[in-house]
């Protein structure tokens, strides 16, 4: 049975069993591998995509329930203002370590910021608590979301690789602490 979906703004038609989770349609039929498999039981969030703008776990979402819906994946999230800002903040604060869970983290963060442009720390924790990161990047995820929300630098930033500064501070403790006083 042919299923029609709008994925990242493009119409896609494919044959798949109705009970096949969206995750495997994306990865194994459409070849869109940015969305990851982590647990298969909606516990880790690595498979998070947007359906009509809302974050969902695609590993437990039968594709038959989605006919005609609009899907956004990590490959297309940059098209939204919130998505692009999240990606930039993720790089500026060097959130990423292994990166495997980060597609899902970014999708959850982009959905949060699109709906709630200035989330509190508690709202950040609630929105992001469905996404496991085994590398433990949570501190920086929180900071990066705050950075997007406030538009201010809330923690140490990476330097651009194109033109490294010549001077490095010496003889001082270098502290990785969230900057206080930023709303």
């Amino acid at each position, binding site marked *: 049975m042919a299923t029609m979906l709008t994925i990242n703004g493009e119409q896609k038609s494919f044959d798949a069993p109705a009970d096949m989770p969206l995750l495997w349609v994306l990865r194994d039929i459409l070849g869109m*591998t*940015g969305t990851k498999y982590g647990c298969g039981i909606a516990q880790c969030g690595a498979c998070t995509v947007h359906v009509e703008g809302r974050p969902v776990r695609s590993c437990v979402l039968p594709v038959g329930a989605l006919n005609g819906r609009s899907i956004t994946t990590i490959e297309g999230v940059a098209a939204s203002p919130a998505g692009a800002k999240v990606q930039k903040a993720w790089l500026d604060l060097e959130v990423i370590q292994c*990166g495997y869970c980060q597609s899902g983290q970014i999708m959850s963060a982009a959905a949060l910021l699109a709906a709630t442009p200035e989330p509190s720390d508690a709202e950040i924790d609630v929105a992001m608590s469905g996404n496991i990161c085994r590398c433990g990047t949570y501190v920086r995820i929180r900071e990066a979301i705050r950075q997007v929300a406030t538009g201010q630098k809330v923690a140490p930033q990476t330097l651009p690789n194109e033109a490294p500064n010549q001077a*490095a501070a010496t003889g001082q403790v270098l502290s990785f*602490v969230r900057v206080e006083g930023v709303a």
Partner: protein
Amino acid sequence: MNVRFDQPLGESQPDNPSRREALKMGGLVVAFLWLGGGAKVLGRAAAQGPVAAGDSAFAPNAFIRVGTDGAVHLVMPSIEMGQGAYSGQATLLAEEMDLGLDQVVVEHAPANRKLYANPLLGDQATGGSTTIRFCWTTLRQAGAAARALLVGAAAAKWKVDPAQCTVARGVIRHETSGRSMGYGEVANAAAQLPVPEKVQEKDAAQFALIGKPLRRVDTAGKVDGSLQFSIDLRVPDMKVATVKACPTFGGKLVAVDDSRARQVPGFVAVLKIDNAVAAVGEHFWAAKQALDALDITWDHGPNAQYSTEQLFKDLAEASKHGTPIPGKAVGNVDGVKGKALEATYQLPLLAHATMEPQNAIVHVRPDGCDIWTGTQVPARCVDVAAKLTGLKPESIVVHNQYMGGGFGRRLFEDPVEQAVAFARQVSYPLKMVWTREEDIAHDRYRPAYYDRIAATLGDDGKPVAWTHRITSGSVLATFAPGAMGKNGMDSDAIECAADVPYEFPNMKVEWVRHDMPEGVHLGWWRGVGPVHNVFVVESFMDELAHAAGKDPLDYRREQLQKNPRALGVLNLAAEKAGWGKGSLPARVGRGVAVAAPFGSYLCVIVEAEVSPQGEVKLRRAVAAVDCGIAVNPNTVAAQVQGGLIFGWTAALYNGITIKHGAVEQHNFNDYRMMRINETPALEVHLVDSKEAPGGIGETGTVMAFPALFNALFAATGVRLRSYPIDRAALVQGPDALKAVITQATDRAAAAKEGMA
């Protein structure tokens, strides 16, 4: 230091600094040095061949390729699993070559022990927090030699003194004459020059990249889903398999009825090996549906009645009656008079649970074999494939990939071995992907430990005798049997137990080996030996401080007077955390731990709160770190932050348990991970240091356990000596629940009144 590029480092120069540093750095590293392994920074002839980097006119060693178009490809001897190793290694090479990190392309190294072995591990392997320690000299030498050749070629062309030339971002300039040339333009000429015998690395004052929080080289493709892990790869004509191995350790496959599986749309085949079955489909979902539809008969084998209870009973028995192997002896612990304390600590088996489940694509052909996977040990993958297929190692190619977490799991090539065993039965490329359940059930587990530890305190409260007997299985014995001590000692088992930061006048540390039953496999887990020993040592130090009636931080400070770097991080952490200042609410406590794992020095202070019902909440943590020169301080901080959370996750929730010979945990529902809402405010403070770099990737994990457990003691007065945390032991008292219910009832009544 002078290096001849035609001689292996570490063999011909017994006194080179990297070896000397390594020898100071303790068990795991020293153990592997016994193997006499070593990476050779080989000359040009040997380096050519293994890497196809397109146009690579200039290839002075195994790590650097410069094309005539100026493209610089750097081949990474240590793999990238999230720890920032590619960026660190590229920084060392680019620093000496005067390139920007944006100007280089990094490549996965092929399987080749001769070119890419890590001398600190005796194999082509990434682990033990050794990458920067191993590469600090090797890669800066390689980069400096390449720069000397390229500048030499330009100077010869211009007929000027190379010393008058400068380089910035890969462009060579001769200021006096105003001439300039890119690396690409001299690549061919540089390739004709003899590799220099003497190269001078930069002084620290000249560093343009090292020490800067530069952006990692691998993250751009990780924010848009474009970077592929091996689980994402698709090769032409491949089919997808998922696997179920006998849930009982050491059990065998007897029979499979696949009649229901054959009805699954997209079903391709069922493949069998000795102890496992694979369902193959057109895609993972078909394979998974087919696997679930198989009716499998197992022979559960000799471990069918094995359990966690049995494991700890056996360990306790071995501790009492086994033969201890001496690890460290200072003075004489017997007959020392004073206040005596003793305790027993028990640590569980742990799984790695990398976010990317185990997977590999294997294509076995009559004339060769291709393997696409993410592995910490590429050469070992070739070994197992050669053994299983009978193919020559030269015809087996490992295409290594970025890894979705490693933590030691990918130091074991058993999933690749299994994938080859299935793939050799078919003609098409077979992509094998384990489910999370399979990943948890068939890990190489962090060993369980049983520790008996005792001390005698003198009149001033300081330990005058310290006795520590560790009992465990041995990872080293299977991973690298040749690295075991002549007396049978596993140096990893006592790392950071025999070499504590304190000086005790009388000290005895010993290890009793107790092997797991056949089929129960142990493995390296983030933090290796120290993640166990630092927990026990620093918890017990806390017990001693309280027994001596002293502040636990002051107690440590008194005994670190001869250890300036340890003292430095202790004082820094104390200052930043405000130790001893202000008052804390009831059932909130601060815990401290200090240690020197992997050649670095750390002190971590945790502030934790325990609810009356025994629920634990981390409120705040402060880490002070002296890891010598931080090649990238941002990465160092990230590793400490992430490492702490990795450790706290295990402390709060983890422990693999065995019943009827099989693992009882399945997935993230019952093998829980810490989440963002449980993450405390977390500060990392780095000491500016000129010392050679220490290891960092595992240090946070090592420190996480004792700092948290000491905080729990401070909050509750309850000393926990095992994990995961026993909430029942932390319940305030029988009235605690009653109090909460009363409060809730009062609140409900108040709310009702308010509404009325």
